[in-house]
C-alpha cells in the first residue's frame, strides 16, 4: 500500500488542477452539512443552557417567544410594559425573588461600534447570572454602569470612562435626554449575551427613560422666567426652560428624584427566581389566569418550541446536503471513469510490466482515499474556521 500511496500522491500532484477541483468539490459537500450541524448544535446548547438557567420570566401578555428572547438576549422590546407591582403575587407570599429588567435604550455608538443595549436591573441580577467584575466595581450610585467584556473590548472602555445613552426619539424634547454614565467596572467574560450589554441600576434606566430627573434647585431666588407659577412660595412649578441634568455628579445627585411610586414604573420583563420547586409551581399558578395582564413563562419550554423550528431547518439542510452529496458523488464517479479512460495507457503499461489487477485497484483506491482525506481535512479546517468566526454571530443570523 505504501507504493500505491506514493504513486497516487505523485499522480494527484501532477494532475493538480483536476485534483484541486475534486478536493474542493468534495470538501464543500462535507463542509456544508457538517458546519450547519455543528453551528446548530452550538446554538442549541447555548440557547438551552441560558434558558435552562432561567427559571421563570414574567412580562406583559403578547408574544411568548419575543418576551423570552428579550429577557434572555436583550433583543427587541415588548410593546406593552409591566411593573414591579405585577410581581406582587411573588413578593407577597415570599415565593421568590423578582429581578427587574428595563431594556429599552442603547448606548451611543463609540469608535464606530454600534451602541450596546442598556440593561437596567437590580444587584440580584449579577448574583443570579454569576457575573464577576474583572476590574472596578458594580454600579452603586445613580448614573453608574458596568459593561460586558465584549463591549469593553470593542469600545475600548476602561473603568472611569463615560458612556452616553442614545435617546430613542430625537424629537421628544421634553422626555429623553442622553445621560452620561460613568463606567465603574468591566465584567469578566461570561460567554453569554451579558458580554454584549451595559448594565445600570434600574433607577438609572428610569432616568434615561425620563421618569426620573435632576435639575437646578427652585427657590425664591430662581429666575422668574423659568417658573410657570411663582405666586405661591410653598409650591413652585418650573417650565421647560429648566433643563434636567444629563450627568449624575456628586454635586447634583441629591437633586435627582422620581415623580410617582416606583412600583408602578415600567419594566420590560422580570426574571423570577422561585424559592423552591413548590414556590415555582405556585407562581405559575398565580399567573395562569387569562385575566391577568401579565404572563409567566418557563423559558426552557418556549426555547424548545423555537428549537423545534431550528430542527426542521436542520432537517431541510440535511435533505439539501444529501441531494448535493449524491450529485457530487455522481460527478466524482464520472471524473473517475473519465480519468481511468485517460489513464488507460498508463494502467496498461503497469499491467504489461507485471503489475497485478489488485495493485491497479489499490492505486486507484489510494487516489480516492487521498482525495477524500484531503477534502475531509480541508472541510474540517473550513468548518473550524466558520464555527470560530460565526458561532458568536449565529444568534444574530438566526433571529435578529
Amino acid at each position: 500500500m505504501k507504493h500505491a500511496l506514493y504513486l497516487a500522491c505523485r499522480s494527484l500532484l501532477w494532475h493538480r488542477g483536476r485534483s484541486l477541483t475534486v478536493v474542493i468539490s468534495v470538501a464543500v459537500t462535507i463542509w456544508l452539512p457538517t458546519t450547519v450541524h455543528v453551528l446548530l448544535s452550538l446554538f442549541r446548547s447555548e440557547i438551552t443552557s441560558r434558558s435552562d438557567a432561567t427559571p421563570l420570566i414574567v412580562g406583559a401578555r403578547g408574544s411568548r417567544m419575543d418576551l423570552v428572547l428579550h429577557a434572555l438576549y436583550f433583543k427587541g422590546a415588548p410593546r406593552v410594559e409591566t411593573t414591579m407591582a405585577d410581581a406582587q403575587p411573588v413578593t407577597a407570599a415570599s415565593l421568590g425573588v423578582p429581578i427587574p429588567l428595563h431594556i429599552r435604550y442603547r448606548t451611543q455608538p463609540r469608535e464606530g461600534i454600534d451602541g450596546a443595549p442598556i440593561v437596567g436591573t437590580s444587584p440580584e441580577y449579577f448574583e443570579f447570572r454569576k457575573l464577576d467584575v474583572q476590574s472596578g466595581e458594580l454600579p452603586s450610585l445613580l448614573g453608574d454602569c458596568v459593561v460586558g467584556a465584549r463591549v469593553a473590548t470593542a469600545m475600548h472602555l476602561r473603568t472611569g470612562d463615560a458612556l452616553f445613552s442614545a435617546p430613542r426619539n430625537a424629537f421628544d424634547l421634553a422626555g429623553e435626554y442622553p445621560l452620561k454614565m460613568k463606567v465603574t467596572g468591566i465584567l469578566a467574560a461570561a460567554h453569554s449575551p451579558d458580554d454584549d450589554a451595559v448594565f445600570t441600576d434600574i433607577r438609572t434606566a428610569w432616568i434615561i427613560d425620563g421618569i426620573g430627573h435632576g435639575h437646578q434647585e427652585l427657590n425664591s431666588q430662581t429666575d422668574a422666567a423659568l417658573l410657570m407659577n411663582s405666586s405661591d412660595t410653598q409650591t413652585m412649578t418650573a417650565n421647560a426652560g429648566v433643563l434636567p441634568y444629563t450627568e449624575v455628579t456628586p454635586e447634583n445627585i441629591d437633586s435627582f428624584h422620581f415623580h410617582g411610586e416606583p412600583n408602578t414604573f415600567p419594566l420590560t420583563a422580570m426574571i423570577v427566581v422561585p424559592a423552591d420547586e413548590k414556590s415555582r409551581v405556585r407562581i405559575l399558578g398565580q399567573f395562569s389566569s387569562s385575566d391577568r395582564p401579565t404572563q409567566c413563562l418557563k423559558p426552557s419550554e418556549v426555547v424548545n418550541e423555537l428549537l423545534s423550528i431550528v430542527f426542521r431547518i436542520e432537517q431541510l439542510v440535511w435533505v439539501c446536503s444529501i441531494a448535493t452529496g449524491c450529485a457530487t458523488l455522481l460527478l466524482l464517479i464520472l471524473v473517475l471513469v473519465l480519468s481511468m479512460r485517460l489513464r488507460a495507457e498508463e494502467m496498461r503499461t503497469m499491467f504489461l510490466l507485471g503489475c497485478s489487477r489488485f495493485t491497479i485497484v489499490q492505486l486507484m483506491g489510494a487516489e480516492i482515499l487521498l482525495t477524500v482525506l484531503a477534502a475531509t481535512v480541508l472541510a474540517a479546517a473550513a468548518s473550524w474556521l466558520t464555527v470560530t468566526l460565526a458561532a458568536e454571530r449565529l444568534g444574530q443570523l438566526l433571529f435578529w
Partner: protein
Amino acid sequence: MISISKLQFTYRDSPFSLQIPELNLAGGQSAVIVGPSGSGKTTLLHLMAGILSATGGEIIVGDTSIHKLNDVDRRLFRLLNIGLVFQDFQLIDYLNVLENVLLPCRLNPSISLTEDLRARAIALLTSAGIQSLQNRSVTRLSQGERQRVAICRALLLSPKLVLADEPTGNLDPATTQRIVQLLLQETSRSNASLVMVTHDHSLLPSFDRVIPFEPFVYGTHSAQSPSGVDS
C-alpha cells in the same frame, strides 16, 4: 535464456494462428524478429512475456515454464525476469526519470525498493548517458532520452530476458543506432537474452540471430513458422 518448443497460438474468433516448432536463445544472445505487420511478431513477444497464454507447446525462460504458472505468479515472474521495452516508451508522465526506472519496484509488494536497487538505477542511467537527467520530468525529454529511460527500466531487476517491441520505431537513424547498441551492450553485460522486433533491416547485422516472419494470409489458416536464420 529462452527455449520455445511446439508453440501454438490462436486468437479466439480469428483465423490467425502462430506455430513455432522450436526456438532457443542462450543467455547473452540476441535475436531480432522481422516481418510485415500482422505476421505475429508482437504476439510472439507477448507469448514470451506471459501476457498471452499459448494454446499449445511450451515456453521456458531460465528454468521456468511460464505457462505453467498461475496468473499471480506469472505476473511476478514477468516483473522479476523479463524486461519489456515498447515502441512508444510507455513512461509514466507524473514520475521523474529515476522514479520511472524504479517503477517495477513499486508494482509488486514482494520487491523492496532497496538502496542497492537505487544505486543500480543510477548506474544504468549513467551507462545510458542520462544520469544528469535523473530528476527531470520525462515529459521534458527527447524521444531518444525517453527510450533510454525505458531501457533502464527494463534492465533494472537484471532480467533473464529482454523483449523489445520496435523500440526504435519513433527514432532517427543516429538515435536508433545508439539505442540498439545500448540494448545489446547492457543485455550482454548482464547475460540476458534479447529479442527485438523491428522493421529496420539495417539493424539486423548487429544481432546474433534474425527470425523472419512471413505475412499471414487470411482464409488459409496457414501456420507461419518462423525459421531461425543465423546472421
